[in-house]
Each structure stands twice: as C-alpha cells, then as structure tokens.
C-alpha cells in the first residue's frame, strides 16, 4: 500500500497544452457529443479537446450523468419539507424518521445492461445503488426492485426474467442486505428493453450524514476497492442511446459484480465514516473516475490534479481515456484530510482492501490529468458538471389520444365472473411472485416485519427503537401511457396508499423516470406530463422527491421501426411507523371479521387490467384521482392502524375489488362472504374488476367495529360494509344482480401461484 502524502505531480503552468492530438469536430459523435455540444466544449477549453477530454465531456454530458433532456423538467418536482435531511444532488436523499435517525434511499435503473446481460446487469444495479447508500454514511438495510419484462410466453422474456432475478439474488444475498419487496410487471413493450429499477434504503444517525465532496485544497483523493479494468467502458453513453440489434456487441459495456468486495467496502467505509476519518465519500458509478471526481470537486467548488499512473489497474496498456471511463465495479473515492491517513489506511488494511492516493484537491477549479508526469487533460470543473440542457416541444401521439377517448360502452359484461377472476389472478403482473422472492434472502439482518407478499409495503423494524420503516415501489405504466399526468399522479397515490395500508406515514419519494427517446415529440410529451403529475401528487401528499434517476432511450430500434416502452415513472416511497408493533398485513386473520371498503374512489373500466386481459383492450381513461380525498384516506388509515384498530388492509389496484379480496383470502387461507353495494359501479363487471384510486379493503374484528366506523366518520372518510370473513370460498355478489362470483380459496390460490412458478421452470 502506498503512502498518501507522496502524491503529487509538480504544479504545471495552466497555459500548457495537454499531450495528444486534438479531436477533429467530425468525430464528435464518437464521443457521444452533438456538433453543437462539441463546439461548446471547444469554447469552454479555448481549443479543441484531446481524446480523453472529449470522452469525459461526452460521458458527463450524457443523459445518464448530465440529465440534459430532463433537468428542466426535474426542477418542477417539489424537493423540500421539514422531514427532508438531504434533497437531490448527493449520492442519495435522506429523510428524518425521528430518534436522531435518518433513512437514506434512492432508486436507480440498470435497464440497458440487463437487456444484454441480465444476470450481471441486475447484479451490478444492486451493487451500484448500495454504494450510493453507504456513501451517505448509511448502513443499507433493504432492497426493493421494480422490474418489467415483455410477454411471458416468449422464451427471451423468461430468460431475461430468470437472469435478472438470479442477478438480484446473487448480489443482495451475498452482501447480506435483504430484498424485501418490489413489483414485477409484464407488457410486450418491454420485450427487448426490460426495466430493472433497484431501490435501496439505509439508516444513519444524523451526525454521520456524509457529503460527496473533496473538501479543501490539500486534501487527498484516495481510491479504494477493486482495480480498474476495461469492463463497463462507455456504460453511461451506452445507457443513453437506443438499443439496437447490434447492442449485444456492447456487452463489454456491462460490468461484472463482486458482492464480496463490496461487503468489505461497505464495512470499511462505514467504519471510517463513523470514526470521522474522511471528508467525503463517493461511489464510482456510471462514468467511473470521471464522474465521481468531477462531482466531488464540483460540490466543493475546487479543482483536482489526478495522477493516472497511480490508479490501480488490472490490465496493462490502458489509455488515459480507458482509465477515466472504465466502469469497473466496487470502487469508492474517499476525500481525506492530511493527518489522519495512517489511521484510515489501517482500517482499510484490516478489511483487506487496496487503497491508492491518486490525486490532490487544488484551488484552481480545473480537472487536470497527469500521466508520466505530463499533462494529458485539463478541463474546467464547472462546465464539465453542467451539461447543456434541452427543452423540447412535446406532442401527444394521436393513437394514444384515440385509445384514451375510445367509447367503452359496447364492451360486453362477461357471463362467468369466476373465469375472469381466474384469468386475472393468473395474469403475470398480478400473479403471486412467491417463486421470485423465495430466491431473495428477505430476512437477513433480522428486521423484516412484513415479508414480501404479506402486505402492501415492506416493513422493517429499526433496532434499538420502537420505530419501523416501510417502503414500496409502484407504477401502473398502462395508466401513464393512456394519460401520463393522471397516471403518474396515480403512481404516487398508490405508493402512499400502500404505505398507509401497512400503517406507515409517507415521508418522501425517489423516482426512476423510464421513458423512450426524448427527441421524439410524443415521448417528450409523456415526460412533461408525467413530471407534472408527479409534482401535483407529491405536493398534495407531502412526499417531496429527494432524488432519483432518469433513464431515457428505452426503446428498441429495428431497422426504421421503433418500439418504445410505456412511459414508466417508477415511484419509490419511504414511510415511518412510530410503533412497529402496530402494523397491518393483507392476509385475512380471523373468521368473523367485518370487511369494509374505506375511501371514496370510483371503479373504472378504462385502463384496467380486466379490460386489457379479458377484452384485449388497452383503452379508456385511468381511474379518477382526487388528491384531497386520497390524502384524507391515507392519514385516516395509518392513524387507525397505529391506534391498534386495524391490522388487515389491502388497497384496490390491478384487478379491482374482486382481486383485492381474493389476494386477502389466499394469503389468509380464509373465505369471504361479500355483497358489493349496488351503485358502487354502473356495471357489475366494473364493480368486481374495475380499478380505482383512494379505496382500501379493511378487515375489522368485532371489538373494534364501532371504533373503526366512528373514527372514519369523524375523519370524513366514507366507510361501507362489504360482508365478513367466513368459510373457504370467495363469494361476492353485486347488489341484487344475479351475477355472482363464487370460487374456492384453494382454486383461486392455484391460479394465483402457477404462472410465475411455471415460467421460471421453463
């Protein structure tokens, strides 16, 4: 291990030019820069860039790092609130959960890597987001995933699904952070371009909150972890382009994960942070050394002299460009003040980690690279971090407008509701994900109170306190596709409702905005509208956005034809339970409990899973959403659960009331005897299978019956009795309609459990 103090290359006059040939402007595209962007680089430098400089600008100005198409939109999102300890701009956001503790959380996508190499793509997605969490000084304690694939009947979809699941399992299980929840959805639009969004949560004491900064001049940059290789070269640029038939040739742009190395990094980083030995910590993620160093310097308003010869490498003959752009995994950058190096190195050595001082902080405001004592790159830190932004004009696709406005009055009411229920329970998006989460260690760390599949959100207790933390990831992309603004707002509302259903008070959001190519007007329209929807709902529900990720170019290009994904703004939300003993699950617990419908939503045929799955129509408007009504439902529900009045709750979502009741019955192994009030919907099939916002089914034991009804009335939240928990059948009538649904719990369970289990076996 080298000594830290001996770092530094002699100061070089700023007017000296870096070694190497200037890049001709015709080559701009090679570096991911448009001709206009190339001209801006020339203006910032006062000369043409050399190759490594062009590549660094190209990477930092890519959508993945620079958010050039989304930054103006993201400014619309609310980011502040008394509960926010850290908003956007750091490695992760942090919310206050009380008792001097905070929860750091963030979601990130690994879509393109997972499309070409599902196991490693997903595994390194987990590794990357965990590094963001412990860089904040937080110990990761939970992982959730939102993953989306194409048609399950395709062999390729099954290959991607099983690879992604094994990749998540392989990394999370080995590092010992439980995978506690998430969503798995299917739609043909994700066939070639699956989505892999991973969210992680970590806990920290307020005083340990870190910043990814280099601090003051004279500080040393210490490189810790795996050596640098050629893997993941150009990953940020790869992630910012359309997938094509030749994308498999980009497999070298996918990194390889080593959870064992990351476990050592995790423990070592948390130890040096706790002992106050570091000034700043940053993950080397997308664009590797380039982005980590540039971002840390930018936060401090400083410059950096970086000695490439000192970067630990596992391959000989790497060029400056390759070293700076490598995305080798399990690497961290620490900023260290002179004086504590020996103590710091001793900790790293104990964890059997290699470390190398590779640069010093300077006050010149430039990012300078040296190799063999020569200047090989010299760029101003500010412009590197300030990608040009683009505001475009969006136009709604005519086909989407027509689908939304389609007249659905001619849709026939099915004669056999039992068959519909079986079809919906077996629909891969609704079906049990047990065969998936069985592969994830969801109990390591012994905090998981509500296990995957047992509640609308995961609940983890916080050791040493009475508190719990709940988390969920949600998005119904069909809603967003048909009506982006309302659909995105519905995603936020559902996330908040899911937290309330386990007894948690929602605190904050991390979002992962997955869209197609932003230069396509119809896609840009979706982005603008969806962000407005997120804004409205996050403001109304008091859940500020503390960070997140934008993933664009999620479309597959085959010749001249484009297949864009449904717009998918995945919402990750975190909430707190003041007393974790008081939580709720979705399984029916006792025969004789009264079932109530709580809330004021109206079921809709439009945009429903029922309409898509049974009638083959993706059309109509998503359910109406009144955010004032939603907020009052959420507050009432989590307060009732915290008061010990309710311990069983499940919201209406995909598949409507019948599927909600069936899921509660299957999980609890008990039947329901229900009569849906006539007037709930205009059609019996919509009453059973129509989807709605702001509605939750609760099961209430006799002793709390009066208390619950009085509580709801006092809060002004409608509460309607549905029936009771009884027997072994799911028996639902709609008013006086002759049509009745009547299925045994065991048969329903068989339909629910079979789909994913079978898909993973073939």
């Amino acid at each position, binding site marked *: 291990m080298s000594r830290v103090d001996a770092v530094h290359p002699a100061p070089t006059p700023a007017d000296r030019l870096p070694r190497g040939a200037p890049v001709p402007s015709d080559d701009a595209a090679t570096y991911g820069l448009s001709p206009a962007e190339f001209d801006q680089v020339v203006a910032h430098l006062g000369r043409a860039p050399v190759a490594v400089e062009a590549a660094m600008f190209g990477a930092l100005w890519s959508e993945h790092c620079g958010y050039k198409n989304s930054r103006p939109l993201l400014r619309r999102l609310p980011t502040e609130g008394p509960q926010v300890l850290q908003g956007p701009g750091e490695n992760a956001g942090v919310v206050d959960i009380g008792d001097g503790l905070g929860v750091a959380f963030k979601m990130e996508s690994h879509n393109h890597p997972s499309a070409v190499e599902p196991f490693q793509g997903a595994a390194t997605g987990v590794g990357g987001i965990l590094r963001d969490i412990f860089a904040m000084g937080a110990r990761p304690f939970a992982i959730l995933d939102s993953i989306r694939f194409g048609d399950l009947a395709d062999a390729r979809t099954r290959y991607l699904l099983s690879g992604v699941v094994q990749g998540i399992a392989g990394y999370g*299980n080995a590092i*010992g952070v439980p995978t506690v929840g998430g969503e798995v959805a299917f739609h043909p639009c994700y066939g070639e371009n699956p989505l892999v969004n991973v969210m992680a949560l970590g806990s920290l004491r307020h005083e340990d909150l870190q910043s990814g900064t280099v601090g003051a001049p004279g500080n040393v940059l210490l490189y810790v972890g795996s050596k640098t290789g050629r893997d993941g070269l150009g990953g940020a640029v790869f992630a910012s382009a359309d997938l094509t038939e030749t994308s498999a040739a980009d497999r070298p742009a996918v990194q390889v994960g080593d959870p064992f190395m990351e476990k050592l990094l995790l423990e070592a980083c948390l130890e040096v942070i706790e002992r106050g030995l570091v000034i700043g910590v940053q993950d080397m993620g997308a664009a590797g050394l380039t982005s980590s160093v540039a971002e840390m310097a930018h936060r401090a308003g400083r410059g950096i002299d970086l000695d490439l010869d000192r970067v630990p490498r596992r391959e000989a003959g790497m060029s400056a460009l390759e070293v700076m752009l490598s995305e080798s995994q399990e690497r961290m950058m620490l900023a260290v003040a002179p004086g504590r190096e020996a103590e710091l190195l001793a900790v790293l050595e104990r964890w059997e980690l290699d470390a190398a001082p590779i640069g010093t902080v300077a006050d010149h405001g430039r990012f300078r690279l040296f190799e063999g004592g020569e200047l090989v790159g010299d760029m101003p830190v500010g412009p590197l971090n300030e990608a040009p932004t683009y505001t475009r004009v969006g136009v709604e696709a005519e086909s989407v407008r027509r689908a939304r406005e389609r007249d659905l009055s001619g849709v026939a009411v099915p004669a056999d509701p039992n068959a519909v229920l079986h079809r919906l329970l077996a629909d891969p998006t609704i079906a049990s994900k047990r065969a998936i989460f*069985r592969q994830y260690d969801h109990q*390591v760390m012994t905090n998981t109170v509500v296990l995957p599949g047992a509640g609308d959100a995961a609940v983890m207790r916080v050791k040493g306190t009475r508190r719990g933390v709940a988390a969920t990831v949600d998005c119904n992309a069909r809603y967003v596709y048909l009506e982006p603004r309302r659909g995105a707002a519905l995603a936020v509302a559902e996330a908040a409702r899911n937290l309330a259903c386990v007894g948690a008070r929602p605190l904050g959001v991390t979002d992962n905005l997955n869209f197609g190519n932003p230069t396509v007007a119809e896609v840009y329209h979706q982005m603008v509208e969806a962000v407005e929807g997120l804004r409205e709902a996050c403001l109304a529900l008091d859940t500020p956005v503390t960070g997140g990720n934008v993933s664009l170019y999620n479309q597959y290009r085959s010749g001249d034809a484009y297949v864009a994904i449904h717009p998918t703004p995945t919402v990750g939300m975190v909430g707190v339970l003041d007393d974790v003993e008081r939580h709720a699950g979705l399984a029916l617990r006792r025969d004789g409990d009264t079932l109530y419908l709580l809330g004021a939503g109206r079921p809709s045929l439009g945009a429903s899973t029922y309409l898509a799955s049974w009638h083959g129509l993706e059309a109509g408007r998503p359910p109406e959403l009144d955010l004032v009504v939603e907020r009052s439902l959420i507050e009432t529900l989590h307060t009732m659960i915290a008061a010990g009045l309710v311990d069983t709750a499940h919201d209406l979502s995909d598949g409507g009331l019948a599927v909600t009741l069936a899921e509660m019955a299957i999980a609890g192994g008990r039947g329901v005897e229900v009569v849906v009030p006539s007037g709930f919907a205009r059609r019996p099939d919509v009453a059973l299978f129509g989807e709605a916002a702001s509605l939750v089914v609760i099961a209430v034991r006799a002793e709390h019956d009066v208390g619950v009804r009085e509580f709801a009335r006092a809060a002004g939240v409608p509460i309607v009795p549905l029936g009771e928990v009884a027997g072994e059948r799911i028996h639902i009538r709609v008013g006086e309609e002759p049509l009745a649904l009547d299925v045994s719990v065991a048969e329903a369970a068989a339909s629910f459990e079979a789909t994913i289990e079978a898909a993973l076996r073939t």
Partner: protein
Amino acid sequence: MHSIAVLRFPGSNCDDDARHALEDVLGASVRFVWHTDALGAVDAVIVPGGFSYGDYLRSGALAAKSPVMRDVRAFAARGGPVLGICNGFQILTEAGLLPGALARNTGLDFVCDTVSVRVERTDTPFTGCYREGQVLRLPIAHHEGRYEADAATLERLEGEGRVVLRYVDVHGERTSNPNGSAHDVAGIVNERRNVLGMMPHPERAVETLLGSTDGIGVLASLLESAAVTA
C-alpha cells in the same frame, strides 16, 4: 455472565443477527472474533451465516483454513460447544469438525423460506430446551444446503442418533424437504455431540414481531449448557 464468541470472516453477514439474538434478546454477552485473531477465553462459539470469502472456491472452504479455526478445533476438542449456522455449517464440514458436505440445492435456486424442522434429539447442548419430536418453524436461506455424505457415514449418523434436526411438514411427517438433503438432514452433531451444524437460522426466529420464536430453544440451550460446562 457467559461470553459467546461469534466468529467474523470477510463476507460473514449473519454475525450481527446472532449478536442481536444472544445479547439483546437473551441477555448473553457476545464477543466478535475476527478470523485472524485468537479465540481467547469463551464459553461457546458460534460460526455465523453469510458468504465468507464470497463463497468463492466452495462455500466455507476458505474460511475453514483461517487462523481462528485452529483455536475453534482445539476448543471443540476440549468439549466446548460450537454451533455453525448455514454458512457456519458449511465451514464446519470443510474444517472437518463435522462429516459430509453441503451441496447445491436440488432446485438449483437459492431458497429463502420458513420451513418445518423436527427436533430428533434433545441430548445435545443445543436442543435441551425442546421436546423430542417437537416441530419448529425456522427460516432457511441458502443456495448450498443439500446435506450429502456417503452411505456408511449416513448410517453411522443415524445409528448414533446424531441427526438432531430434520426437515418435515407442518405435521411433523417426512414429506417436505426444501433442498434435497439426504435423510432430510437439517442439522447434525459430531461424535462427542458438542458441535452442531444446522442450515436453518435459529437467530432469525427469536422475536414474535418477526413471526417465530421457535429458534430461541437452540440459543437458550446453548447458554444453559455453556453455564454447565464453564
């Protein structure tokens, strides 16, 4: 006050769960022992779960060669109780403290679930708090949990009553085996009965809040017997 050593290898990840169960739930005193350090004076040793050395080469193979295992071998030879959980079980077989090996689950996938396990023997330092035949609900989480040994070894284990825990269904019948283990083995002891290796995680089942307290008996038995031997 007993001191229980919980070993820590690079990649251990159930070490703090074991500490929490013993210290915060059962009131014992725990000392973490790093794999290169000496074991020192302790009343019992726990080899916790996780992915020591990333499970590279073979699960448990590298950890079995670490310096602290020499002390553990000597401690076991003196009759001290040693409990290996999950990866700890794998390490104990690799270290030769227990016979047989743990192979990849028959389903080939990692399995995390809560399963039924029957207590076959109560005459060990780890199961004294249970009734013979008692069916426990315990979490499992492993990729290589399929116990394998040659026929003679299995016969000997059975003959000497060294299969201490067995996978069963909720009724205690031998119809359910999550990983394909020979003879439905979930846990075995050595000849002297002071070293237990088990794939299920008792330390994950010690609090009602987390769903089961059936694992307390393993740890409580260990504390009790440590008091006797100390």
